[in-house]
């Protein structure tokens, strides 16, 4: 088992004829993901890497039964692509696009809620259930099937952590990159609940960073609803206030959103926080033994 993506995922790639879309469609297919279709308006009827391309999401679903969509279109077109997927009945949308205007996402959210569409991202690396499906731009080779669920606001930091877990022979059930933007889809609370309910997940790694108070809320949620062990890491302990640290959402504003507050919130509810990334495998071994 795993969460969100698995062997039953039938993946559609929106923006499949672009540079990133075609490259990663090939990578995901090579990993073993069931990539059933691509969409690129005006390029319907062609193929990319043997994957049939359609003009609209609706046509792609009708022809292939796609249930999940990954979006690689340019940032200013991303909101429309998300809406198209939602309207056509896709269950899970993963938006990779980086640089989407925040108000575009604000305007999209109520529609997704109404349609019951789950969104991951934007500005995220996607997700993977090792051995089942890779839906994103993550390097599939560093993951190992196992029972640790992972969620993170960062891409490469996730790879770093996963690499260390895998090197220590600690496998993963599902790893989800939730993205670095201030307004994004599924976040800690929803994913914590999913991992809590997933029989294949025995422990959870949460990788947070500065900005906002989602980590504090996650800590509260863990206290009330999560019985599985959780370990955490917070990036940005040395970040200066008022500076956007690469991710649009990674900013300490008016003294709030600091790493210190987040670490304190976790420690108060008994979640162990790694001081440096290399402590994560040891902490996982420790909590899984108990």
């Amino acid at each position: 088992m795993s969460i969100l993506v698995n062997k039953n995922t039938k993946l559609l790639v929106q923006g499949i004829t672009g540079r990133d879309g075609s490259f990663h469609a090939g990578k995901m297919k090579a990993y073993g993901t069931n990539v059933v279709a691509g969409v690129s308006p005006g390029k319907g009827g062609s193929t990319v890497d043997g994957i049939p391309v359609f003009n609209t999401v609706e046509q792609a679903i009708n022809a292939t039964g796609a249930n999940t969509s990954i979006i690689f279109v340019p940032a200013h077109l991303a909101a429309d692509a998300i809406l198209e997927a939602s309207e056509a009945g896709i269950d899970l949308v993963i938006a990779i696009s980086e640089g989407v205007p925040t108000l575009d996402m604000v305007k999209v959210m109520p529609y997704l809620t109404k349609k019951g569409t789950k969104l991951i991202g934007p500005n995220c690396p996607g997700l993977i259930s090792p051995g089942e499906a890779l839906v994103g731009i993550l390097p599939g080779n560093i993951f190992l099937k196992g029972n640790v669920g992972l969620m993170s606001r960062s891409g490469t930091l996730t790879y770093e952590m996963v690499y260390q877990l895998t090197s220590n022979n600690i496998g993963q059930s599902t790893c989800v990159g939730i993205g670095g933007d201030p307004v994004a889809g599924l976040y800690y609370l929803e994913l914590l609940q999913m991992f809590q309910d997933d029989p294949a997940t025995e422990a959870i790694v949460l990788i947070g960073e500065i900005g906002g108070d989602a980590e504090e809320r996650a800590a509260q949620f863990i206290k009330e609803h999560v019985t599985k062990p959780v370990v955490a890491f917070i990036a940005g302990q040395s970040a200066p206030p008022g500076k956007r640290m690469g991710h649009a959402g990674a900013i300490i504003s008016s003294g709030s959103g600091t790493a210190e507050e987040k670490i304190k919130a976790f420690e108060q509810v008994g979640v162990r926080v790694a001081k440096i990334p290399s402590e994560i495998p040891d902490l996982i071994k420790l909590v899984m033994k108990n």
Partner: protein
Amino acid sequence: MKIHEYQAKEIFSRYRIPVTDEVVCYTVDEAVAAAEKLGLPVVIKAQVLAGGRGKAGGVKLARTKADVPELAGKILGMDIKGYTVEKVLVAQGVKFSSEFYVGLTIDRNSKSVIFMASSEGGVEIEEVAKDNPDAIHKFIIDPDLGLTPFLARKIAFALFSDFKLVKQGADLFQKLYRIFMDTDSSLVEINPLVITEDGQLLALDGKMNFDDNALFRQSAIEALNEPTEDELKELDAKEKGLTYIRLDGSIGCMVNGAGLAMATLDLIKYFGGEPANFLDIGGSSNPQKVIDAMNLILSDKNVKVVMINIFGGITRCDDVARGLIIALDKIKVDVPIVVRLSGTNSKEGLEILKQANLPIVETMSQAAQKAIELCGKN
């Protein structure tokens, strides 16, 4: 992106939100002329893109004719949080009875725009939020409906008891919301919003921040940008596909990915060093990017050592290593370099670097410690 108070109030005016009569001045003479035109008293306010101007002594009331050149002279050229005051706003001194705070921003949790309103205006809202959070009323705005008249009234009723003011306020709040949406703002604030002697609402101050991701469709806003020297460097880096932020330390950093870059800075601090910069080179092995990144790091004369921390994901470590060697061949680097490569094909990558005689280490922690050690020696 941020703009000055006077620019925010110019936008307010365009939407017919009443603001003080005021003139932007670059010299003492201009300030004197402005005060003559507006009539005494006037408030002279430093226009810098930093908060806390009042506390820093950048806002003064000029009561007499003699006050104006004296105060304007003091404020012009003053340093506020690293910004030099190059212009002041000379604004008509207004008598008022009460001060309020109103503002709009993005709320990450509700994934909506929220309206914040408080009767405790005139002080820093962050302090109110800390000391008396209940004094700030928050209203979530449905993006499909916008700020409806009833919600605008509800906000106004939370602040005012006089129905005339409620009507004025509701109208003003709807305009403020339109400004927020029309300009892709991330923050719009009036602090304080005051009631004048003749019972009118007036924006005494104004603040606007914008969503950098939306500037591509906000050319009029982008034209107002006044980047500092450091920000110019950041913008220049962005055009080359790099995210750069200058810091105060001496260990230059080159990392792929924002999260890993943040964690790298943390690690350097953890082991007792001081990073010189945040630098995310993104995910590619393109030698030109490494050259650009290296030049950027070395343009900071505080840098005594460079730590390169790359995690090879899709981009393979052997490709990154080859890119590094080409890059380092093309530019002269006088300071020591520590390289840490990990991830896909790291063995092959490290072998290539070894042959090129580059100091390599295996883990992030080792790299940080080695960089700190080398930094001490230089």
